[in-house]
């Protein structure tokens, strides 16, 4: 067998060399204004992507061949692991995830450099320089301090295996999704930095930057949602979001990117907020790298501490340099960036974008502050103060409710300025829906303020979105029927707007899930003998029997339970505990969840412990209403993203030409 370690090292070394070459080419092209050199730099980017692909494949072969002379393979896999999981072990540790990041970035860079050159010859060399600087840094770290191809002098007969918390199908997609998300904010950053370096702004460049930002935001959304799903199904505490530092830092770039996507609309349509949007792009990447720094350095205590490592200082320097350089560039160019068009009135769409940005950034600032605060107290007074979920519940939840309110009203307003009457006309339906729902809820005896308010706002958002969707569909159908032709596709008219309404709808459904599960959960712990049951929230969970199965490397104990409601059995649940060889001190839970219909309660059971004879078990039972709406809302959200992103033909003939070419087509 060829030596994988040598092959991997060589590939990474050459890739590093090429990234340096690429930087030199692109920088020379930028400074000397020789666009031909930028073309060479573009080719270097493609070569680099190929080399990194080879490096990733090499490491995968190492995993599949169980080559435990590679330290990373020995540390993160074992022969007992199934193939899918073995590949996923690639991002189960720091070196591997760094390799994954750099590989994904190289592919994104290769595509982005091509796009840059087709769009603007003059700006492209600057953008490519920035992209290659990132690659030089990450490849440098990979080659010199944190190589996944370290040789073990004595290869162990068996690998250590993967952290059992990560033995889950979520493990196969959540981490690479988040890594890709974090990484992909680098591309719009390069676009923005190119504008600043060159001191010139062009609309096509801004549009391309927005598309990359949209992509990064979509990937980050997927990463966050999968993370929530993973936490809910695997961590076994019945939550999907705990304001844990590692979760917080993943949320930060998402918040800023969401703010950006809204103000970018005002930038495109009305030329407003130009400097501001560019600032947001820069900030989002700085936060993304800060996020990886936090995950990788272990500076903040968190449940994700299995990712501790020694490359923290390097990342710290990288974040600091990124922040200092981009901030000073930004301030230096600020006079040229300012947009000439002022915001006109508060009752206008663009003012809504400003308010949206104010709220989202306030949430981001609060989250950032709360995340780093324990570190500050440790430095200042030597002991750590914990900033936990109660803090975020008190500060962020009101802000999130305000975001819902904004979502309900402002999308319905017109651009520029609206009269009071027109405002009332366009917003009365959602307002009436909100008032009707809050009245109903209070009549039903609900008295908790925040849930009532936010549920009513959700109703308003849904009403407003449906109204708009209906209107657009109606218009689309009318256009289709029109003898003059028009698009056959009823959605083609204003796909971006429609798609974003669908995304809003997804967020509203998601919010309803959050309201239900955070405000109305019930929890109990019980020790049950065979045949006994525990009552909670109208359900009875009865213990039937205990089973155990053993395969090499893994022992599983499963409790079989029956859930009944009003004496009718509605589900069988089988929570389990797994003990992996080599990780005996870390047994993991297989949570059992069942959603009842039509109440939409999740019955969530964790097996805590059991009697050796199998005659009794201790369980934690939670009833979590509406959690299913989180995942449904997530799906709707991504459906909306697809509607926005669905490729449209680049050039579109005027409708009269189309109908002339295809006579008789409606």
């Amino acid at each position, binding site marked *: 067998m060829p030596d994988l370690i040598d092959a991997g090292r060589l590939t990474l070394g050459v890739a590093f060399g090429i990234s340096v070459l690429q930087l030199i080419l692109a920088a020379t092209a930028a400074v000397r204004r020789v666009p031909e050199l930028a073309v060479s730099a573009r080719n270097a980017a493609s070569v680099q992507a190929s080399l990194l692909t080879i490096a990733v494949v090499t490491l995968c072969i190492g995993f599949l061949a169980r080559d435990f002379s590679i330290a990373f393979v020995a540390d993160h896999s074992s022969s007992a692991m199934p193939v899918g999981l073995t590949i996923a072990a690639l991002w189960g540790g720091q070196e591997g995830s760094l390799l994954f990041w750099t590989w994904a970035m190289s592919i994104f860079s290769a595509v982005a450099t091509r796009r840059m050159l087709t769009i603007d010859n003059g700006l492209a060399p600057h953008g490519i320089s920035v992209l290659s600087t990132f690659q030089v840094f990450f490849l440098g770290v990979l080659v010199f301090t944190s190589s996944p191809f370290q040789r073990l002098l004595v290869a162990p007969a068996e690998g250590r295996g993967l952290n059992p918390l990560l033995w889950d199908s979520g493990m196969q997609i959540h981490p690479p999704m988040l890594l890709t998300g974090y990484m992909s904010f680098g591309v719009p950053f390069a676009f923005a930095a190119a504008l600043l370096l060159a001191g010139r702004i062009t609309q096509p460049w801004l549009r391309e930057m927005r598309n990359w930002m949209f992509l990064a935001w979509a990937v980050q959304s997927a990463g966050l949602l999968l993370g929530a799903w993973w936490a809910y199904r695997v961590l076994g505490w019945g939550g999907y979001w705990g304001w844990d530092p590692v979760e917080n830092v993943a949320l930060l770039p998402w918040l800023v990117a969401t703010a950006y996507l809204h103000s970018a609309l005002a930038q495109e349509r009305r030329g407003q907020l130009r400097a501001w949007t560019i600032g947001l792009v820069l900030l989002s990447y700085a936060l993304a790298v800060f996020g990886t720094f936090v995950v990788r350095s272990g500076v903040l205590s968190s449940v994700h501490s299995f990712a501790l490592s020694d490359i923290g200082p390097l990342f710290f320097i990288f974040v600091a340099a990124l922040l200092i350089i981009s901030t000073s560039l930004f301030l230096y160019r600020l006079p040229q960036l300012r947009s000439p068009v002022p915001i006109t009135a508060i009752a206008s769409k663009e003012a809504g974008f400003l308010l949206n940005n104010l709220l989202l950034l306030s949430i981001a600032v609060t989250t950032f502050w709360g995340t780093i605060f324990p570190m500050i107290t440790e430095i200042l007074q030597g002991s750590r103060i914990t900033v936990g979920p109660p803090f975020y519940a008190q500060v962020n939840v009101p802000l999130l409710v305000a975001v819902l309110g904004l979502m309900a009203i402002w999308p319905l307003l017109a651009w*520029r300025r609206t009269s009071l009457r027109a405002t009332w006309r366009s917003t009365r339906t959602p307002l009436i829906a909100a008032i009707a729902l809050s009245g109903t809820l209070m009549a039903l005896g609900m008295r908790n303020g925040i849930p009532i308010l936010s549920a009513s706002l959700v109703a308003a958002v849904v009403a407003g979105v449906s109204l708009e969707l209906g209107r657009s569909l109606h218009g689309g159908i009318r256009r289709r029927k029109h003898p003059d032709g028009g698009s056959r596709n009823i959605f083609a008219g204003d796909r971006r707007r429609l798609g974003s309404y669908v995304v809003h709808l997804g967020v509203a459904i998601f919010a309803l899930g959050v309201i239900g599960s955070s405000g109305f959960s019930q929890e109990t712990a019980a020790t049950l003998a065979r045949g006994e049951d525990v009552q909670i929230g109208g359900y009875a969970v009865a213990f039937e029997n205990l089973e*155990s199965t053993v395969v090499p490397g893994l022992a599983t104990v499963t409790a079989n339970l029956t859930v009944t409601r009003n004496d009718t059995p509605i589900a069988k649940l089988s929570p389990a505990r797994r003990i992996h060889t080599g990780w005996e001190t870390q047994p993991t839970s297989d949570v059992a969840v069942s959603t009842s219909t039509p109440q939409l309660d999740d019955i969530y059971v964790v097996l805590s412990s059991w009697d050796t004879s199998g005659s009794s078990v201790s369980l934690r039972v939670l009833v979590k209403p509406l959690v299913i709406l989180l995942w449904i809302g997530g799906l709707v959200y991504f459906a909306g993203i697809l509607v926005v992103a669905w490729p449209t033909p680049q050039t579109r003939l005027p409708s009269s030409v189309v109908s002339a070419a295809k006579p008789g087509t409606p």
Partner: protein
Amino acid sequence: MTRIIWVGIVSLALVVLDSSSLLADGASDLAIEKRMWVIAEDLDCPVCEGQSVRESNAALAVQMRNTIVAKLQAGHSKDQIMQFFADRYGPGVLRNPPRDGLALAVWIGPLIAMGCGVVLLLGVFARSKQAAQAQKGADLSSYEQVVKDIQKPPRRSDKSS
């Protein structure tokens, strides 16, 4: 036979980590249990990174939950119980940062940031009002802009996406 041995081994491993016999002897009283979970939610489990006493299955967390139940049954208030744990395990055990001393800064920080944001925003609106008043003569051009906006075929805006 091997099965029983395995169950035994696994159980032994778990006994070290887990000893949730909480409800068997402890809170028969549902109201007290409910209050216990609320309090446990606000306490950080000192031995498990980033989990609350409510969420954690660690032995210490289970013990702390039992302590809460005992103290509730003895008539202690939530504040007293929180204070008890803060004295015993340090202020880091409180998930809700106190509103005094250095920790006050964590509460004030966001308020200051939001205040700055609001001031900035009001500034933007004020400036735009001035600008609008300054160029009253430009009314016509903005009217034309409106007409242009209206006449724009809607499908043009998705060209770039």
